[in-house]
């Protein structure tokens, strides 16, 4: 059974195998198909038109399925690998072990943002940014960009306390849990972390930085945590909503999976914290 662990608790061997599996997906070309898919959705999801991957109720089930696809791809390389999550309320500085050279490498140099160490530095020859919107083919970061701070645990708790999943108009202007977690409104959780990392993570081709998966694995965990706190709060909307994926409607690009299929993560994986509490 797949157990997703806090990245801070990974052993050296677990980090090594995760990095190796990511490298292999990159080498084979499979990695970049995930980047392309994400960018296609982020450019087409609109507040006033059809929206699936972002700025809409299906932000959470869409990314749950997207991460499942990626995790299964990793496991096709190494069956022992699972997606770790990054709790950025706890590991909130560039000095975190997350950014050490044996895992994701650190921030970019000031001149051009280029990441200079770790397994994903351009100089290592294994991580060329291929799906891109500008001329630069090297991974970039600017951790703590512009003096920004990562969200605090108190800010996360304030969003987890919201008892309505999502609200009309079901977009970036909505009140409710989903949009506050996504960050278009309120204290700003998910969006702010993308901006904090900087570089490609702040763009539509954000999965070019492997931290994308660890960030979204934590967002996904927060959805599970919210469900545990609000067991009577359903996914919304329940049906008949134009341009929006209702509970039992299928999501592109898969067209065979609905939000209802994604509500319970436990058929697919558990979290290290689930195991501790049961």
């Amino acid at each position, binding site marked *: 059974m797949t157990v997703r662990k806090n990245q801070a608790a990974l052993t050296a061997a677990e980090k090594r195998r995760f990095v190796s599996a990511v490298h292999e997906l990159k080498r084979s070309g499979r990695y970049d198909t995930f980047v392309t898919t994400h960018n296609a959705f982020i450019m087409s999801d609109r507040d006033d038109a*059809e929206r699936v991957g972002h700025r809409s109720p299906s932000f959470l089930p869409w990314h749950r399925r997207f991460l499942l696809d990626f995790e299964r791809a990793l496991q096709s390389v190494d069956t022992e690998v699972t997606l770790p999550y990054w709790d950025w309320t706890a590991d909130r500085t560039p000095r975190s072990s997350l950014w050490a050279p044996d895992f994701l490498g650190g921030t970019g140099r000031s001149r051009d943002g280029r990441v200079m160490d770790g397994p994903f530095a351009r100089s290592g020859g294994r991580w060329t940014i*291929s799906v891109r919107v*500008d001329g630069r083919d090297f991974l970039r970061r600017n951790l703590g960009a512009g003096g920004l701070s990562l969200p605090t645990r108190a800010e996360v708790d304030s969003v987890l306390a919201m008892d309505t999943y999502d609200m009309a108009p079901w977009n970036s202007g909505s009140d409710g849990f989903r949009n506050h977690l996504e960050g*278009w409104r309120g204290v700003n959780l998910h969006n702010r972390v993308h901006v904090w990392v900087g570089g490609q993570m702040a763009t539509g081709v954000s999965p070019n930085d492997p931290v994308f998966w660890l960030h979204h694995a934590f967002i996904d965990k927060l959805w599970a945590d919210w469900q545990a706190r609000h067991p009577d709060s359903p996914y919304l909307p329940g049906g008949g909503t134009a341009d929006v994926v209702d509970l039992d409607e299928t999501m592109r690009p898969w067209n065979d999976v609905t939000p209802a299929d994604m509500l319970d993560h436990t058929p697919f994986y558990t979290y290290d914290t689930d195991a501790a509490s049961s």
Partner: protein
Amino acid sequence: MSGITRRRALGTVAAAAGTAAAVPVLAAAAPALAAGPAPTRSGSAGHDPASFDEVYRGRRIQGHPSGGGHHGGHAGHGGYTVLIDGEELHVMQNADGTWISVITHYDPVPSPHAAARAAVVELQGSPLVPLVTA
């Protein structure tokens, strides 16, 4: 949900790689700002989606409402086109009137002009290119 046909093309990796093919599809379908270049939108903090044309940090940035279908298939994206040194920057307006671009997608700013300037800062002199997948 409706409109599956027009979006089906964007749901595949192959089609997504070809922005030249995807853009006209979006342009034809985008109803945003159909009222055209409304001179002032509330909440836009002093900037409205009027045209602009300037050299910012050594780069020419231009923006204009794009209901008229200039630039071949480049019109659309919510009815506003932004160019950096002649290359289109994909921009989008949020429900609250703020704007983002593909370069700064998680960080809304008050106007397309501000989005263009933010992209110039982020690009650090690098050329903007249509989505590259090689």
